[in-house]
């Protein structure tokens, strides 16, 4: 290696070489496949540039599938944020014994990873037509979920309720450190100045937490939007949402236009990318306070 020391121009390429396997791998199995889809979204069948595919996204069942997907993602993220925040706050602010915190966080780690096909079966077994809760309500209270409450596990609310099983734990995992970052001095300072608990929350704590809350909402949104397996195992093709439609398109070109499939995938990337950029940006803002 004496040459490398005497010739500094040689060093740079040699250093780069150490990163080469990683760069080649991510190029081949992450960036190029995605780029292929994105480029395909802007091409017609002969390969010429066109915006027609994106325009065609506004035809047939595609707009409604995006709309349903966005609604489910918003509903499950909003409820997930709300319930997760409540649970994390109860533990962090000492409403319940602090010994619960560690097991709750561990459990959240497991549950936030318990998405996919098994989760669908868990909810079918609980809220499905012959599920535990369904039978319990019918036998003991005479309430039939589907008739009296209009609830079906194969519907919009069914999927939302199922997604909450991984949305709430994810919220707990992310928001707990933020809540712990609220300094006791801020609360005491507010109290000394005569603020009520409501005023403290409205004027001090919530403005500080706001970027974290909104950022986590964005992350939860992307999480729900990209979920495929749970939806397919739960509803089959009964519910018209983007991942299910894209799955069918990849399997058998149900749209009858491969480039329209690319455009649909591109739309999915756009939605999750915007949500994630929002998350990262808000997280940087939030960290200013939580050092």
């Amino acid at each position, binding site marked *: 290696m004496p040459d490398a020391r005497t010739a500094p121009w040689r060093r740079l390429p040699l*250093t780069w070489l*150490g*990163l080469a396997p*990683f760069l080649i*791998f*991510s190029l*081949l*199995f*992450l960036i*190029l*496949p995605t780029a*292929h*889809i994105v480029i*395909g979204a802007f091409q017609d069948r002969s390969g010429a540039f066109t915006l027609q595919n994106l325009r065609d996204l506004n035809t047939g069942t595609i707009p409604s599938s995006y709309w349903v997907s966005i609604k489910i993602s918003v509903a499950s993220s909003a409820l997930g944020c709300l*319930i*997760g925040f409540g*649970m994390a*706050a*109860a533990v962090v*602010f*000492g*409403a*319940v014994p602090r010994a619960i915190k560690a097991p709750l966080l561990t*459990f959240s*780690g*497991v549950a936030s*990873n318990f998405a*996919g*096909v*098994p*989760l*669908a*079966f*868990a*909810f079918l*077994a*609980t*809220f499905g037509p012959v*599920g*535990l*809760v369904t039978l319990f309500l019918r036998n003991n209270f005479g309430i039939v979920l589907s008739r009296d409450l209009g609830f079906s596990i194969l519907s919009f609310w069914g999927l939302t309720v199922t997604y909450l*099983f991984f949305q*709430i734990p994810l919220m707990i995992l992310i928001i707990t450190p933020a809540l712990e970052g609220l300094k006791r001095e801020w609360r005491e300072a507010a109290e000394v100045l005569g603020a009520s608990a409501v005023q403290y929350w409205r004027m001090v704590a919530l403005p500080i937490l706001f970027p974290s809350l909104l950022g986590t909402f964005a992350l939860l949104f*992307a999480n729900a939007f990209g979920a*495929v*397996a749970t939806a*397919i*195992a739960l509803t*089959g093709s009964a519910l018209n949402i983007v*991942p299910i439609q*894209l*799955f069918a398109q990849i*399997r058998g070109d149900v749209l009858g236009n491969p480039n329209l*499939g*690319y455009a649909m*995938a591109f739309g999915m*990337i756009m939605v*999750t*990318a915007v949500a*994630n950029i929002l998350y990262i940006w808000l997280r940087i803002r939030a960290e200013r306070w939580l050092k």
Partner: protein
Amino acid sequence: MSLWGRITGWIVLLFGLGYFLLPLLGLTEFSLKARRGVYSFDAYAKIIGDPEFQATFAYSITMALVTIVFGVLLVVPTAYWVRLKMPWARPYVEFITLLPLVIPAIVIVFGYIRLYNTSSFLPLTGSIMGTNLLLAFGYTTLALPYMYRAVDTGMRTIDVATLTEASQSLGAGWVTILGRVILPNVVPAVLSGAFLTFAIVIGEFTLAALLNRPAFGPYLARIGANKPYEPFALSVIAFGITWACMGLIQLANRFSKHTKAAQ
């Protein structure tokens, strides 16, 4: 904390815990109902005896192990090299490793199918072995964010530069340094990344289904449509595996804290 605060806290917490426990209870109860009138393990016995279950389960375990090996071989040298020689590149590398969280898995596999078809420059989907390889690479990609974070955090706790110089002055080459000095020092981090990878791969559905490989996830989804109790028993098993993996991660983390405290 006021009385009302406490009461609200308990209500929220109990509601949440009920929400988590009820589906697991429902799942377990349903999986035991295969015999009319009494609880039994019939569904479990049936499913474990099913040769297709054994085949798909073995396939997914093999895939998970291969993915872990790929992931370690890819991530450990990269994280090491970035820390040692190119610290300025860390944000960029980290950004790339986080991309699989942004790009939905279904889009990535869509790209694979179109890019690596039989008429492409790398016709991986043309043969079974090639498709298996592609699936393993796909899983490595999905696990990249978790693996890289775990290993990079592990590297932070050791003095990479000093260890490297010490090894070099004793005459070690790069392979020896990585394999016998760096890797043993980040074993807990690698383990927690590995268990998470295992948990992700074992029940993964989208990639395996779209690449048409006989993995556990697609099998579970398929029998869900035509068997009454078995899919629920399988889901209990899948949950048990996820739970075990997370428990092992906790154990690995505790082990790493222990060694840090001892230093």
